[in-house]
């Protein structure tokens, strides 16, 4: 089933052009004091005309589609929660998400996502994050986040291209590596991981090191790196390595980006006091300043026991944070150039186990897309009455990723070359995006 409303959101573009004042990306990045002092919305209006970006809300462990986007009240698989009316006629969501239900006409929901993956880590998760690709041997595809960071990065930008904010629940050693891997794209597009806090460690210059000394060291490193790179100009990995050092300085110059105390109290209250909410606010500040890809992780949704207690506690926070983020982006006129995605390793089983839990499930679950390039109010696909199978319009990870690329204006069939010279497309050959959700 595909439902939609004709409404398209977004206020008019800001009339004031501040490009000359800011002097390009470098000017913009010369200090976050500028962003705050000049007025975030005005600067945001300028940034949005330059490039597009993505915030991925990662539901670590696997959000239950039944307790969120695709409830089945009254069915044996449905659990105890009721469904409520939404702003899209005919579409009902879990009662745990009243705020998103009221603004779902600005989001596209895919209820028929399907993937073979049912694990938190390992090869099938690697495959999922590169579009459920059956990679073999050395021919591996970078993950979605790294590809988007690469595609959306801005030449000369001193800010990181990929920031990943985690909470403490990702329980696996190196779990972040399971989801983000740049491979031949190079280290520049690997995430800066920020776990259980709001800013990276070590972004302030040590007191014993003067700014002049720090810059001198950077100049020496650049000189040596330039010599090394001279005969390797086509190697993305080498270029990316140098870019990473360049960005370190950029982050140090812009440490204020991670300081949400600079936000008005009303905005901070809207996001709430959870770590997820505060990290989402950091994410907004990052994309507003030009960081192209930010992941914000909310966990731990892996509700093998007491699924309904976990979701009763956590979904309202997701509802609050997601609606606050979308509203904030919209009010700053950033949503038209920012794509907000909800995604996870998997969904949760229709069957309710003996400990009132739901287990891992890949066959049919829900994802959402909001903002840049997305037709608002589309409810794409459906599951059967008990949520045990896709009923209409199955969407694979490859198709979902193709949709994301297309929404951002990126040709999803674009080819890269692996280190050994073999072509790799952004999505597998013949993959089609989900056109019904594209604006």
């Amino acid at each position: 089933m595909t439902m939609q409303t004709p409404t398209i959101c977004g206020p008019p573009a800001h009339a004031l052009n501040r490009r000359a004042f800011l002097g390009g990306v470098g000017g913009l990045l010369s200090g976050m004091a500028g962003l705050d002092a000049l007025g975030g919305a005005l600067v945001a209006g300028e940034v949005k005309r330059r490039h597009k970006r993505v915030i991925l809300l990662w539901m670590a462990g696997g959000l239950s589609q039944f307790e969120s986007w695709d409830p089945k009240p009254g069915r044996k698989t449905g659990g105890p929660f009721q469904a409520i009316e939404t702003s899209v006629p005919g579409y009902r969501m879990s009662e745990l998400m009243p705020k998103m239900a009221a603004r779902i006409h600005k989001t596209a929901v895919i209820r028929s996502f399907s993937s073979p993956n049912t694990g938190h880590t390992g090869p099938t998760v690697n495959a999922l994050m590169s579009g459920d690709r059956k990679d073999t041997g050395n021919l591996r595809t970078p993950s979605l986040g790294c590809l988007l960071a690469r595609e959306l990065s801005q030449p000369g930008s001193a800010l990181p291209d990929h920031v990943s904010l985690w909470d403490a629940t990702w329980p696996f050693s190196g779990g972040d590596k399971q989801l983000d891997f740049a491979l031949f794209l190079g280290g520049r597009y690997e995430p800066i991981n920020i776990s259980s806090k709001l800013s990276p460690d070590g972004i302030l210059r040590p007191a014993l090191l003067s700014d002049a000394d720090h810059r001198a060291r950077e100049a020496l490193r650049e000189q040596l790196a330039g010599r090394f790179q001279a005969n390797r100009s086509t190697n993305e990995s080498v270029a990316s390595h140098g870019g990473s050092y360049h960005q370190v300085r950029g982050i140090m110059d812009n440490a204020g980006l991670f300081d949400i105390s600079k936000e008005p109290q009303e905005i901070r209250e809207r996001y709430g006091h959870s770590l997820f909410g505060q990290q989402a606010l950091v994410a907004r500040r990052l994309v507003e300043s030009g960081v192209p890809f930010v992941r914000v992780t909310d966990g731990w949704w892996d509700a093998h026991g007491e699924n309904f207690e976990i979701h009763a506690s956590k979904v309202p926070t997701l509802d609050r944070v997601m609606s606050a983020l979308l509203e904030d982006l919209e009010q700053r006129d950033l949503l038209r150039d920012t794509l907000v995605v909800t995604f996870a390793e998997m969904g949760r089983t229709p069957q309710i186990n003996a400990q009132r839990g739901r287990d891992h499930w890949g066959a049919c679950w829900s994802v959402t897309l909001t903002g840049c390039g997305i037709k608002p109010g589309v409810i794409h696909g459906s599951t059967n009455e008990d949520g045990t199978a896709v009923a209409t319009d199955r969407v694979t990870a490859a198709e979902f990723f193709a949709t994301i690329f297309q929404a951002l204006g990126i040709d999803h069939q674009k080819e890269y070359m692996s280190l050994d010279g073999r072509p790799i497309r952004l999505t597998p050959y013949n993959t089609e995006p989900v056109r019904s959700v594209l604006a």
Partner: protein
Amino acid sequence: MPPPNLDKVKISKTVALPGDFLSVVREPNSERLWLGHSDAKIYAIDFAEEKPTAAAALEGHKSYVSGLGLIGNTLVSAGWDRKLIWWDLANRRVVRTVDAHDRWIRRLAVNRAQTLIATISDDMTCKLWDALSGKIIRKLTGFEATVPKYDNPNKIFSCAISPDGRHFAAADDAAQVVVWETETGREAARFEAPSYLGISQGGYLSASRICCMAFSPDGKSLALAGKERAGELFVISGPGLVQIFDWQTGQKSYEQKAGGQFESIYWHPESAWILVAPFANGPLCFLDPAKPRVLKETPATIPTCGLAVNEAADAFYTVGSGKAFKWEFPA
């Protein structure tokens, strides 16, 4: 009659049904149980029968039936559909339905005189109801809407009415225990049981809690049972914890740990033992109320959601995931 030999405790009869039995009440001087189920129906089981079965008897709720109480020949049920329903058991018909709360009703308690019904809900209120008329007597508040310092919605998981009916106690997800006077609604006591506070490092999960409570026979002490604060993740396997407090002073006098998250508790009327039953993996435990020690433990075999004990305390019933059991202490 000699007290039952705890070492002999065993399951004597079993009834199976897919889904979860979430609540149970026993008709006095009988082996007839009424059970609230996750399929929103109320079932009847008569364990006096040679081969008892669960028969769907009452349909009216739209979600989990989380609490049951008996007022004479009237059954009162509470559900996650926010409703209280009074049922005439003789005629199997609805006497009245009340939209009782704004959120899910977690539990229901009835005083011994069968004049008062208490309910607790995720709307963070406790309500006292006239058992016969169904009129609300008073609404009791005093818990925060969210778990303090964090955004998690707060919840009230457990409640109990004192043996003399004069006090009503409830505990929330932040491990606050509040006791009110039922006659006046005055808050009589408040204390914290921090061992049950399960806020994780990020403030996003509540992994531990007070799941159930029972007053001592003299009404002076309050036993709390549930799950002790554990690791970072929402895990449901133990450690189970029972603590007893002098509720008027908030002083803890007793602590016993055991496997499993205790979901149900029964305090023997002569304080011979306290029986706790686990929802998670773990045994049924008979505890010595006089000093912290386990008198007897035996596999619960299922995640247990409810417990009922007969008048002589020589037989009891556990209900939960897919099954209902009768337990006895054969000589």
